[in-house]
C-alpha cells in the first residue's frame, strides 16, 4: 500500500511536460533556421512558381490569404502560355543555348584541368604549397574581377591579339570577346580560370584519401601508373567526382557576374545567360522573369536530383 502511494506521488512530480517544451532552447535557437527554410527556401520558391504562371508586368497581382481572395491572381493567370512566350523569345533561346555551351565547356575544362593538376601535384613534388596556392587563388576573386581582367586580356584592340601582332605574328587572330558566335566561349575561358582551383582542391583531397596499399599492389603487379589512375583510382574516386560535379554544376547555372563584367551580355545579347535574362526582365516583364527563373530551377533539379537519389539511396542500405 505504502509502495503504491509513493509511486503515485512520484509519478505526479515527474509527469512529462508537453512535447512542445522539450528541447525548448534548441527550438528557440533554431528559429532563424526555421524562418529561412520554410519562409525563404520553401515559401519564396512556391511564390515564384505561382506567379510564373501570370502575365504580371512589374508587380504581381495582389493575393490575400486572410480572407482568401485570389480573384486578381486568377484574372492574370495564363498558365503555360507565359512559358511558350518565353521560349519564343530569341534572347531566351540564346541564353539557354549559352548556358549549355558555357556549362559543357566550363565543366569539361575545369574537370580535365583540375584533375590533371591534382594528379601532378600529388607526385611528391617540390613547392607543392606554392603551386596549389597559384591554382586556387582565382577562386577567391569575385566574378566581376575575373570578368574585367579577361575582357582586358582578350580585347582585340589592346590585348592578346594586338600583342601578337606587335611581335610580327599578323596572322594571329583572337577576337572571341567581340565575336557573336564565340563570345560565350571567351566567357568560358574566364570561368575555367576561376573555377579550376576548386575542382583541383577537391580532387587532391580525394587522391590523398586513396589507400597507399592500392598503389603498392598495382606496382607489384607491374601496372603502369597511367593505367592505375584510369582504371583503379578514378573509379575509386567516384563519390568525389559526383559531389564536385554537383557543386560545380550548381555554380555554373548561377553564373551571372562574370558575364556582367566581361561582356555586359553583348555583343547584342549573344552572351546572355539565364541568370542575366532573369535579372533584366525583373522590372519590365515580371511573369517572364519568374518563368525564366523557374526554368533555371528545372535545370538545377535535373542536376541535383540524381545525386540526391544516389546519396539517400546509399544511406538507407
Amino acid at each position: 500500500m505504502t509502495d503504491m502511494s509513493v509511486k503515485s506521488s512520484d509519478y505526479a512530480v515527474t509527469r512529462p511536460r508537453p512535447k512542445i517544451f522539450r528541447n525548448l532552447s534548441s527550438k528557440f535557437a533554431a528559429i532563424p533556421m526555421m524562418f529561412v527554410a520554410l519562409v525563404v527556401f520553401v515559401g519564396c520558391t512556391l511564390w515564384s512558381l505561382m506567379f510564373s504562371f501570370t502575365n504580371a508586368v512589374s508587380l504581381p497581382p495582389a493575393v490575400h490569404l486572410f480572407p482568401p481572395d485570389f480573384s486578381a491572381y486568377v484574372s492574370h493567370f495564363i498558365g503555360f502560355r507565359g512559358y511558350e512566350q518565353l521560349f519564343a523569345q530569341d534572347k531566351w533561346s540564346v541564353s539557354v543555348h549559352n548556358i549549355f555551351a558555357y556549362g559543357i565547356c566550363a565543366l569539361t575544362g575545369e574537370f580535365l584541368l583540375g584533375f590533371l593538376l591534382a594528379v601532378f601535384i600529388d607526385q611528391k613534388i617540390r613547392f607543392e604549397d606554392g603551386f596549389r596556392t597559384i591554382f586556387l587563388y582565382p577562386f577567391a576573386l569575385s566574378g566581376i574581377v575575373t570578368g574585367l581582367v579577361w575582357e582586358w586580356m582578350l580585347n582585340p584592340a589592346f590585348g592578346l591579339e594586338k600583342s601578337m601582332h606587335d611581335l610580327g605574328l599578323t596572322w594571329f587572330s583572337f577576337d572571341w570577346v567581340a565575336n557573336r558566335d564565340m563570345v560565350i566561349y571567351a566567357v568560358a575561358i574566364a570561368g575555367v580560370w576561376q573555377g579550376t582551383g576548386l575542382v583541383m582542391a577537391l580532387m587532391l583531397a580525394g587522391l590523398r584519401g586513396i589507400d597507399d596499399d592500392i598503389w603498392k599492389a598495382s606496382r607489384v603487379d607491374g601496372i603502369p601508373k597511367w593505367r592505375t589512375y584510369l582504371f583503379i583510382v578514378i573509379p575509386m574516386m567516384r563519390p568525389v567526382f559526383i559531389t564536385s560535379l554537383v557543386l560545380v554544376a550548381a555554380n555554373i547555372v548561377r553564373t551571372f557576374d562574370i558575364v556582367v563584367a566581361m561582356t555586359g551580355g553583348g555583343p547584342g545579347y549573344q552572351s546572355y545567360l539565364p541568370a542575366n535574362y532573369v535579372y533584366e526582365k525583373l522590372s519590365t516583364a515580371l511573369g517572364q522573369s519568374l518563368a525564366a527563373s523557374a526554368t533555371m530551377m528545372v535545370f538545377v533539379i535535373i542536376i541535383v536530383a540524381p545525386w540526391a537519389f544516389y546519396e539517400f539511396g546509399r544511406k538507407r542500405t
Partner: protein
Amino acid sequence: MSMSATLASGPSGPKPKRAFDPVRIGIYAVLVVASMYFLVPLYVMVVTSLKDVAEIRLGNVFSLPAHPTFDPWIKAWSTACTGLYCEGLSPGFWKSVYITIPSVVISVIVGSLNGYSLANWRFKGSETLFTILLIGNFLPYQVLIYPLARLTSNMCLPGTDLCLYSTIYCVIFIHTVFGMPLLTLLFRNYFASLPNELFKAARIDGAGFWRIFFQIMLPMSLPIFVVAIILQVTGIWNDFLFGVIFAGQPNYPMTVQLNNIVNSIQGVREYNVDMAATILTAAVPLIVYFVSGRLFVRGIAAGAVKG
C-alpha cells in the same frame, strides 16, 4: 617500430635518382605552364595599372611599364567616376566593410547555433529543416530574389515608412539567409565529430543548452570558426548580385562600384584606372586567401562534405 616503418616504405623508398629524370621534368613543365595560365591575368592587372594611358594605347599588354606611375591607383581610389558621382572606389570600399563585418558576425553566430542544435539537440522536424537547407543551397538565387525583394519591402517598422528593402540592413539580412546552408552544414559536421562523452558529462553535471554551447563547444571549435569566417568574408566581399538588388544605390558595395566605374564611363576607357580599381577590389579576398592558406581550402571543401 622503426623496423616496420622501414619495411612498409621499403619498395618505394628513395631510389638513386638521375639528375635529369625526364618524367620529373615533364611534371614540373606542365605545372609551370599551368601556373602561367593562372598567373598571367594577375600580372597583366598589376602591370597595366602602373602604366599611363599613352603607353597602354601604344604598348603591349604583357610589357613592363616604362614609366611606372601610381596615379591610376590614386584616381581609382578617390576620383574615378561611376556616371553620377566622381568619388572613386573608396565609398564602395567602406560600404563593403560595413556590409561584410555585420553579415559575417551574424551569419556565423546563427550558423553555429543551427549546427549545434542539429548535432546535439535534435527535435522533431530538425532533420527536415536541415534537408530543406541543403536543397536550398543548390537553388539558383534568381528564383528567390524577386520574392525576397517583395518580402523585405513589406518588412517595415510598425507605424513608419522605414522598410528593410534597399537598406544596408537588407543586404546583411540577405547574406545571413544565403550563408546559412553552408555554415549550418559546416558547424553541424564539426560539432557531430566532437566526442559525445563531453556533451553527456556536461548534461549530467546539469549544464543546459546555452551553457554547454558557451563553455564546452565554443572553446573547442576555434578552428572551424576561423574557417567559417574566411569563407564568409571572401564570399560576401565578392558578392555582386545581392548588393546590386538589395543594398540600394547609396549602399552599393565595392564590386558594384567597380563594375559601374569600368562599364559606365563615357568616352575613352582608361584601362589603367580600371585595372587599378580591379586590384583594389580584389585586395581584401586575396589577402585573406594568402594569409589563411590551408584553412581556405578546408572551407571550400566543406561544401563537398556530405551531411
